[in-house]
């Protein structure tokens, strides 16, 4: 039998997912009704609807689940996010130095593109990935010590 905290969490996830589905299908239905069979013209709007749907999941799911965390779990997340972000900056700094050293040739070869947008995307994705990874490691470490 799940506790009421678990039930509340499941309910939050359900609200986020159902909302996203409603936004996505609702917006898609309206867009396709407006543009008819011109899928090429509708594509950017469909992409925007998809983004809105994902943004809903991210924002509502995050906000609702955060409210349901107890104080210790919030503390763990704050601490691990702080440690994770600091570690991520340190870990990704060498990539920046690598870019400075050889003008980005190696990175361009790695991502098979050399446009500013590709470099920006690589930097953003790299930092996000490093931060998530470091935060998870920090959280696991906290639980290992405090459990």
């Amino acid at each position, binding site marked *: 039998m799940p*506790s*009421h*905290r678990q039930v509340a969490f499941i309910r939050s996830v359900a609200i986020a997912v159902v909302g996203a589905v409603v936004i996505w299908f609702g917006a898609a239905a309206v867009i396709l009704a407006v543009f008819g069979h011109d899928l090429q013209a509708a594509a950017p709007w469909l992409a925007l609807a998809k983004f809105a749907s994902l943004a809903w999941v991210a924002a509502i799911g995050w906000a609702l689940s955060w409210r349901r965390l*107890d*104080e*210790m*779990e919030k503390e763990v997340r704050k601490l691990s996010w702080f440690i994770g972000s600091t570690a991520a900056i340190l870990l990704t700094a060498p990539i920046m130095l690598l870019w400075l050293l050889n003008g980005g040739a190696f990175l361009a070869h790695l991502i098979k593109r050399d446009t500013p947008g590709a470099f920006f995307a690589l930097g953003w994705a790299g930092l996000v990935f490093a931060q998530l990874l470091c935060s998870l490691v920090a959280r696991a470490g906290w*639980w290992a*010590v*405090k*459990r």
Partner: protein
Amino acid sequence: MKNRLKALRAERGWSQAELAERLDVSRQSVNAIETGKYDPSLPLAFRIARLFGQSIEAIFEDR
């Protein structure tokens, strides 16, 4: 910080999960408080004290 939470819980025959449910926290939090690995906030300390009908000082010891 030392505390008498485990003893008080045992007196009432509650499991960690039951106590967690009554305090609206996770079972892991109860365990961490009982083992002295986590110090609860003042609002949570008051909730614990009210639940057991005792003062905060009677449950938590600042050592």
